[in-house]
């Protein structure tokens, strides 16, 4: 009788412990998903801030980041530095810094620049570095064909 009770108790405890382990694993994956979402938010915010600063330099929109660095007639080195790196204002400021790692204009089938790819890297104070590419929509305005920002989307 005692042996049976011990065996039954052991089965009950082991089964509930395995369920508890599964719950703990789910909790851990939920936590990492939450952290990933925060990174996504930071990257999306950084892309918005970079693009909004870039909007003041239509001359740079049709050129790549390499071209901006090589030739400072459109944007000075100091401006480029301010544009490409920084912190996200508000509570995210202490969470990490962003860096514009790439900007490459894209042409449509007829060779007209209609967009660009903007890549931002997020370095959090704690956790992994993440990077994301955003699509910048561009449109030609006026008779001189100068470009204008139309949006930034993931």
């Amino acid at each position: 009788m005692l042996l049976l009770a011990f065996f039954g108790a052991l089965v009950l405890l082991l089964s509930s412990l395995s369920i508890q382990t599964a719950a703990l694993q789910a909790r851990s994956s939920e936590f990492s998903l939450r952290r990933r979402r925060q990174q996504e938010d930071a990257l999306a915010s950084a892309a918005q801030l970079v693009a909004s600063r870039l909007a003041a330099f239509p001359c740079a929109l049709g050129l790549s980041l390499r071209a901006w660095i090589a030739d400072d007639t459109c944007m000075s080195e100091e401006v480029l530095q301010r544009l490409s790196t920084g912190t996200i204002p508000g509570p995210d400021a202490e969470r990490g810094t962003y860096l514009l790692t790439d900007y490459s204009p894209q042409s449509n089938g007829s060779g007209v620049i209609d967009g660009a790819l903007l890549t931002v890297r997020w370095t959090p104070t704690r956790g992994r570095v993440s990077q994301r590419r955003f699509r910048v929509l561009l449109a030609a305005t006026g008779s001189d064909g100068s470009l204008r920002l139309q949006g930034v989307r993931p």
Partner: protein
Amino acid sequence: MSLVDALMGGVVFGLASTASLQLYGGSLQFAQGREERQQREAQRELALAEGYQRMADLTPDQPCSAAAKELAGLLDLSSHQGLTAQALVEGEAVRLVVRAPGLPERSRWYAPAAFGVCEVGR
């Protein structure tokens, strides 16, 4: 089988059942809460993405600081079940904060200048 054996067996089984029930209960509560949290998170994702949708509703060719204020007004009005959306204007951009019960705060920045819907000054 003695009476002592039967009593001890009963006590051991009873204690194991109680502990097991508590563990089951905790896991069940977490599983139920998880489903609710996932639903709220999905709603919050939609609320956070609203900044992209609302850009098209802005009055064109106004100064970016005015456009940011207008955007904040549009985002503040948006309501989502159980969520609190707050739009804070800072300079020429808007910080959209969406809170959901039981979840940490999430926020995203939106800049009308990045959508070409306002007059940009250097």
